[in-house]
């Protein structure tokens, strides 16, 4: 699975806490200079994966390596290779921004003269020079996130692992954060970024990994994933007036697959449905609608984005979990059955 240029290589990673499986046979690779968007619902296993990568957790099975260093055996080397920004900022009271960076620089063993220069550089990269004398605890959330990135850059690591860097940021700060991450990728850093703000992530990631219940559900470029998920397309039928919505909905229901999801909106005069029918078959549906006297003003395919892809994957996962649970439930045996059996 790993190529020559792969910086991060994860093979069959499994993490169990007692009977609970937090990560189940996860395998993926990330190439140098790429940004991996690591997405999944809460509790999917993203943070567990990250904690294994940075050496804060031990896998139950499988291996993970960064730039050839094993995340378990070479834990000390990993700390120099990786810049890690957890989802919690981790501030210290009564400490100025410059002192905060100075402490972490010293903790990474950077010499005093080099550290001073390095602090200037990371403050400049993250656009934080103006707040160098402010106390850390008085910074706004956006400022703290920038400082968090500055801290991860101090020892000039090859790989940056950022857990929810855009969490809680206002739109302007989010755009700034996006620019910072793109600049870092341009400078040759490899990034793993988790986020719930999927439109933001789709703008910066070269690769996307979708994880649910500890399992990797989709991995690849955004277009690859879209293509895989596009076996079913979302079609929107725009009508001239709300009166035709009900009859259009009936016609579509009769045409598409029995389990297809058809949503009608009187307010918007639209009917949306997901189907894997071919172009010709959809043309036939349009013809049926027009023949039935329904005034169709638009008949178009909606573009699938990362959010849609994510929702599709999580929905499928939920349905398969539900089916699995139902199949595992024992057949109910009522007391009357037992007594009947006893009587016979």
């Amino acid at each position, binding site marked *: 699975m790993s190529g020559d240029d792969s910086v991060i290589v994860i093979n069959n990673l499994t993490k169990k806490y007692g009977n609970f499986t937090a990560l189940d046979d996860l395998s993926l690779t990330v190439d140098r200079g790429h940004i991996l968007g690591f997405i999944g619902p809460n509790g999917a296993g993203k943070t567990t994966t990250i904690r294994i990568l940075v050496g804060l957790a031990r896998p139950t099975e499988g291996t993970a390596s960064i730039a050839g260093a094993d995340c378990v055996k070479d834990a000390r080397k990993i*700390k*120099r290779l990786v810049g890690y920004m*957890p989802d919690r900022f981790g*501030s210290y009271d*009564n*400490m100025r921004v410059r002192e905060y960076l100075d402490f*972490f620089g010293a*903790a990474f063993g950077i*010499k*005093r003269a080099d550290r001073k220069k390095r602090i200037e550089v990371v403050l400049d990269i993250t656009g934080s020079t103006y707040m160098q004398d402010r106390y850390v605890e008085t910074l706004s959330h956006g400022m703290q996130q920038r400082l968090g990135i500055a801290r991860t850059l101090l020892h000039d690591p090859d790989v940056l692992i950022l857990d929810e860097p855009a969490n809680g940021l206002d739109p302007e700060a989010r755009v700034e954060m996006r620019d910072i991450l793109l600049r870092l990728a341009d400078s040759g850093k490899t990034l793993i970024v988790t986020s719930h703000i999927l439109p933001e992530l789709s703008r910066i990631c070269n690769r996307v990994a979708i994880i649910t219940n500890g399992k990797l559900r989709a991995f690849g470029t955004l277009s690859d994933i879209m293509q895989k998920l596009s076996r079913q397309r979302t079609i929107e039928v725009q009508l001239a007036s709300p009166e035709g919505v009900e009859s259009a909905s009936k016609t579509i229901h009769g045409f598409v697959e029995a389990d297809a999801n058809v949503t009608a909106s009187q307010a918007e005069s639209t009917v949306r449905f997901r189907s894997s029918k071919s172009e010709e078959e959809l043309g036939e549906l349009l013809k049926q609608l027009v023949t039935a006297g329904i005034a169709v003003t638009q008949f178009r395919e909606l573009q699938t984005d990362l959010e849609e892809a994510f929702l599709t994957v999580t929905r499928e996962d939920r349905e398969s979990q539900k089916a699995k649970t139902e199949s595992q439930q024992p057949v109910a045996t009522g007391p009357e059955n037992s007594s009947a059996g006893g009587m016979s």
Partner: protein
Amino acid sequence: MNNPIIEREFVGLLRTRRALIVQLSLAAVFALIVLLRWPTDARVELSGAQARQVFHLFGYAMLATLILLVPVFPSTAIVREKNKGTLALLLNSPLGPAAIYFGKLLGLLGFVCLLLVLSFPAAVACYAMGGISLLEDIGSLYAMLALVSLQYATLGLWISSYAKSTDSALRVTYGVALAISVITVVPHLFFQGQEGNLADYAEMMRCVSPFPALMEVMGHSDLSSQGLITAGGVAARFTAIAIVSIFFFIIATISRLDHSIFDRPKDSGQVTDERGAGQRTVRRVVFLVDPQRRKQGIGPLTNPVMIKEFRTRRFGRSHWMLRLVAFCALTSLGLTYVTVTGTMAWGIDTIGGIMVILQSALIVLLTPSLAAGLISAERESGGWQLLQATPLTAGTIVRGKLMSVCWTVLLLLCATLPGYLVIVYIQPAMTHQILQVLACLLWTAAFAILLSASVSSLFDKTAPATTTSYAIIIGLCIGTLLFWLGRGNPFGRPTVEAALLLNPVAAALNVIEAPGFAEYELVPGNWWFMGCVSAICIAVLFARTWQLTRPR
């Protein structure tokens, strides 16, 4: 009386693990006191002397327990709500500041009442032994305990309304509570039987403490009275002071419960380097080491964790250290000056005793506040995860953290050395004795640091770590003195000596031959005890920190 906060506070408290532990331990301790002193002879003493002995012990134990326990809950009540954001929600509700305040106070007092109720079986057992009046003895005792509880609860809430974090609220509350109850009595111990303004002030000061008042209520002579007759009416004066202070605390806290509690500007972070030359010079003279000066980077041979600890501690910055050291040095020299000039008719042993008490109080008050958050505060703030992601080893982290506390405590102890030097100069024969006292103080400091740090490594929040550290250290340093107070009756010499062997402060007082402590043999037994406990603590600290730095 339809105040939802009362129920939430009371029920919320009862749901906590610490409340359960407090209740169970209290019930066990009181049951044990009565069991230990219950008459086993077939003959019953008609005078009721033994019943009174048990009752006295029970009363002092109750007071000490309340002073140790009551501040824990109110001191965190407001600051926790403020930091979690729920105080803003409450202030935004139709409940007024008074309703919020009394809701909290009554909820907390409900819990205190529960603690008092838990002690009823022990009180009833004392009563059953005879010789004790239900109204005069038991009634007065509980009235006094209720008043003290109310005073300390309102004090805790008042401090909580100013605090920035739960652990700082706890530290300040414990500091003030101990200052009120113990330190206010100390001047009277040395001035009793004398005349003059200082003696009058000392006499007034002791009325602030609940201990002399309780002693009077229970018909005991004054604290370490040495046979002197002291002025009566202490209980009445204490009651008046307590009531006035309760009203003050209530009004002051309610007035804090409005928008102003959140309405604080953020520090702009201006550094001295960017001020004018004149201002820079003035600040240099005033501070000596200006805290607002832009700092140099951490040096190559310095442990970065130690420097971080100094910088993040409110009183860790150099200018505060200088002030503390200067204060300690001046106090120490002032005391010896008084002896040398013969202003007071105090002997060297009395002055030595005062110095030992002051230094021990400093160690007992300061050390848990410095060391109990070493690991737990890091875990609470999320900083531990960041430290784990650095190449720092567990050993480097522990060393840096311990050194930051050791330097501070050592500096304060050194600041009091001039006083001892003067004593040695006056009486060279005391050199060996003074060296032994210093050894005792060093053991006290090492024990307090290592115990608090190891407790800190066992908790993931600073507030319970601070409470536990204070409870253990105060229990050993002040709790065991309860046995000394009851020397002669009900405790015999072996019991008192065994209890004092656990107390490093008593060992220091024994070495300096302070009045009341000279007759025991506490050294080197106490040093062995301190050494063993410190060794266990350091092993726990290193093992636990190593465990915390490992991947899980």
